[in-house]
């Protein structure tokens, strides 16, 4: 392993461009990914605010979008979902924190392929720019939702935004897939080949396990999405028929505005394609994708609950096996998105059983988190608050899963706000709590300064209460059959009684989004003015806390760390302090 490290060693760059822009240093690349995701999350959040405004005050002109057209809302939701899933949930927890801390936590000087690493970041940035460009082309952004179901996504005459906007959307996602594949290869190779002496797999921090398994999921999932995207592009532009069946009619005689979208359009000439094929390919990626979003958060939560409870993680091995089980089962549950799609009901039955199965490792993790706090000594630093919030949200979002996993109940709940509430709590907000936890926890190491605890606490409590106030009522709306992806609720009589609740959600969104500026102020103020951080401010045990703050170019200043035991040795009886670093040769009791 030492030879591998030597081969990959590169001297610290001198110029600004090579140091901070086209950098090969995994730490700089991690920060670049982080800020890309931060920019994306504000775009995505702004879009969601516009959506909430439109739902409650449908006649109000939106800033930047002017007069409301029927398609405006659908474009907003498409871009909100796409930007959040790809450029936030996939980018920050894995590519951001993973890039920065995976090599350090396993004792490596850098990623296995630094050039590939740089390339994957810049490719992701290009993808983001292409995605945003869709807003500015003729017809605007696409309106096929983040899932891009064909034929809506496959036929340009299906609506405004389905022309060039949709092409850009697909191209952006294809580029993103390439970037993610490069990243995944790098993560896997690094984890397998560059671990320091003594860093056995079963001594890796759970964060590293999460990043490692997430990378495997990415490697297997993004390739399929890339292929599907290329086929969709061919259907749209080269006259192929992978997803478009014959005999479609988009003459628009019934469509509004009057005159139709495509008044002189002839029947579409495709034949023989299958709309369900797109759904299978998309969800073969799409379901593992939700674990790509949440696994790193689970890793961070485990790391922090142990650190701030001053207690070893409860059931390290069970946690590792649970991550692996989630990774494997994550690939055989995609059909639960398709219970109502026309897929065979027998197939639905087996997907349903598998889905309930994946609930088991998720539950194990929750039990173990509670077991970690139990009889510990909890320190309420801001990162810990977020880790506790993560557990709460994970439980809340997780327990609506068994409703949706049953096809019988999905008959009623599918495509209602119940689903919107479910996935936002678990893969949206819980994952974002993982990112906040990671930010408050690792910021001192990354930037050498301590973030404000006071601002952190305000941010935490408003965000926790605010996100529950937004997403919990969505379950009620879903039970009352309020369909998702509706730009207005004005057309249906039975939805009128739900308007007060919808208004409440919009008010909560205003407050919660407002509170995010506390975070931004804290982040940027601390970066320049915050109090200096020590090398190990949280008294944690993993390798990133053994090195300087911020870490030198090769992470350990020419030293290669040697690891003697597992990552969570807190409150070891007889030890001089209440934590034993992984590099501390002192013995710990066998377990």
């Amino acid at each position, binding site marked *: 392993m030492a030879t591998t490290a030597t081969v990959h060693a590169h001297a610290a760059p001198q110029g600004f461009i090579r140091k901070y822009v086209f950098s090969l240093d995994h730490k700089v690349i991690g920060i670049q990914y982080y800020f890309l995701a931060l920019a994306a999350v504000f775009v995505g959040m702004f879009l969601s605010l516009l959506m909430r405004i439109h739902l409650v005050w449908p006649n109000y002109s939106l800033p930047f979008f002017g007069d409301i*057209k029927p398609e405006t809302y*659908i474009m907003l939701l498409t871009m909100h979902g796409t930007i959040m899933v790809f450029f936030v949930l996939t980018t920050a927890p894995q590519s951001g924190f993973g890039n920065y801390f995976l090599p350090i936590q396993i004792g490596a000087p850098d990623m296995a392929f630094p050039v590939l690493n740089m390339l994957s970041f810049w490719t992701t940035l290009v993808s983001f720019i292409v995605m945003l460009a869709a807003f500015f082309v003729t017809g605007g952004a696409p309106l096929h*939702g983040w899932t891009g*179901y064909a034929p809506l996504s496959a*036929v340009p005459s*299906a*609506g405004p935004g389905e022309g060039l906007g949709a092409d850009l959307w697909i191209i952006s996602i294809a580029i993103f897939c390439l970037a993610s594949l490069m990243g995944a290869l790098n993560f896997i190779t690094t984890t397998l080949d560059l671990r320091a002496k003594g860093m056995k797999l079963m001594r890796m921090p759970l964060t590293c396990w999460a990043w490692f398994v997430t990378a495997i999921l990415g490697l297997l999932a993004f390739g399929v999405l890339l292929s599907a995207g290329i086929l969709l592009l061919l259907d749209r532009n080269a006259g192929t028929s992978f997803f478009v*069946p014959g*005999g*479609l*009619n*988009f003459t628009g005689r*019934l469509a*509004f505005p009057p005159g139709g979208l495509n008044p002189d359009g002839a029947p579409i000439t495709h034949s023989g394609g299958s*709309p369900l094929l797109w759904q299978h390919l998309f969800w073969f990626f799409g379901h593992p994708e939700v674990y790509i979003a949440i696994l790193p958060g689970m890793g961070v939560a485990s790391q922090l609950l142990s650190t701030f*409870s*001053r207690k*070893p993680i*409860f*059931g*390290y*091995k*069970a946690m590792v096996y649970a991550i692996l089980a989630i990774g494997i089962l994550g690939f055989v549950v995609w059909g639960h998105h398709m219970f*109502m799609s026309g897929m065979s*009901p027998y197939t639905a*039955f087996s997907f*349903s059983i598998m889905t*309930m199965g994946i609930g*088991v490792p998720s539950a*194990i993790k929750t*039990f*173990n988190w509670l*077991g970690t706090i*139990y*009889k510990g000594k*909890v320190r*309420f630093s801001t990162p810990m608050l977020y880790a506790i919030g993560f557990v*709460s949200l994970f*439980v809340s979002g997780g327990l*609506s899963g*068994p409703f949706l*996993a*049953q*096809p*019988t109940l999905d*008959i009623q709940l*599918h495509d209602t706000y119940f689903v919107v509430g479910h996935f936002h709590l678990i893969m949206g907000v819980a994952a974002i709590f993982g990112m906040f936890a990671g930010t408050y926890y690792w910021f001192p190491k990354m930037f050498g300064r301590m973030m404000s605890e006071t601002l952190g606490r305000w941010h935490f*409590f408003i965000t*926790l*209460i605010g996100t*529950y106030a937004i997403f919990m*009522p969505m379950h*009620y*709306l879903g039970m009352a*059959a309020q*369909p998702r992806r509706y730009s207005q609720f004005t*057309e249906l009589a*039975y939805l009128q009684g*739900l308007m007060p609740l919808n208004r409440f959600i919009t008010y909560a969104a205003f407050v919660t989004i407002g509170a995010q500026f506390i975070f931004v102020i804290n982040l940027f103020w601390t970066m320049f003015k915050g109090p200096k951080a020590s090398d190990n401010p949280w008294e944690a045990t993993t390798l990133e806390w053994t090195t300087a703050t911020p870490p030198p170019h090769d992470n350990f200043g020419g030293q290669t760390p040697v690891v003697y035991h597992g990552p969570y040795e807190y409150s070891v009886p007889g030890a001089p302090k209440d934590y034993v670093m992984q590099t501390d040769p002192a013995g710990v*009791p066998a377990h």
Partner: protein
Amino acid sequence: MGLALLAVIWLITLLSTYFFVAKTWWLPHGASAAAPWIDGQFALTFWLMGIVFVAAQLGLGYFVWKYRERPGSAPVEYSHGNTKLEIIWTTLTAILFVGLNLMGSTVWAHERFEPAKPGSVQVEATGAQFAWFFRYPGPDGTYANVQAKNISAEEQNPLGMDIESADAKDDVVSGVLYLPVNREVDITLRSQDVIHSLFIPSMRFKQDAVPGLAIHMHFTPVETGDYEIVCAELCGLGHYKMHGMLKVLSQEDFDKWLASKEAEKQ
């Protein structure tokens, strides 16, 4: 801080649970034969998951407060876990989740594995941007062939039926879904353009209409009345406007309505 956290987590939990238990917002009134089964399974799932939810959240809030660091707090128990406990809760969770699923699957099998029984009312639902059309095959029991090139609003042929064919003579097309009460309906779902989804909340019925496929489903309305129909699959800019109405009539009224529509065609 521990107390604040406990208070916030408990308050969120109890408030959320209150609105569920008080049924302030709940499933719409069920008026189909399957509704009691589906609602029963929903209630069972709701109670089991609700208990786990409350226990886990209250436990979390209590633990972080109880085990907070303070002067003189008890020494931390140095433990890496407990394999026996892991096995117990893994097994219990597996039994709970899979068992719950198996209990619900009989309803699913009843609704989706078996086709409609002979003698059920035949109706075809076609989704198009942005409206639903319902077609009854008439006395001959056969739907006329449809083709995209025949579609025409001017000639009152929104489905593109082959107007000249014998089958078309008695096909009735309606923008409102009329059904007789207490009779099973064999509904065939089609789409002309993109994927739509026929969702009738009070019937506990939802099924995507996929272009290129003719999907057979069935349900039995058990109460007369008017029920709103919505589109549940994103189908374009007018998705929110794509709604319709189901009118469940007595068999007698239904027959009368169908006869009058047939008479209009002659």
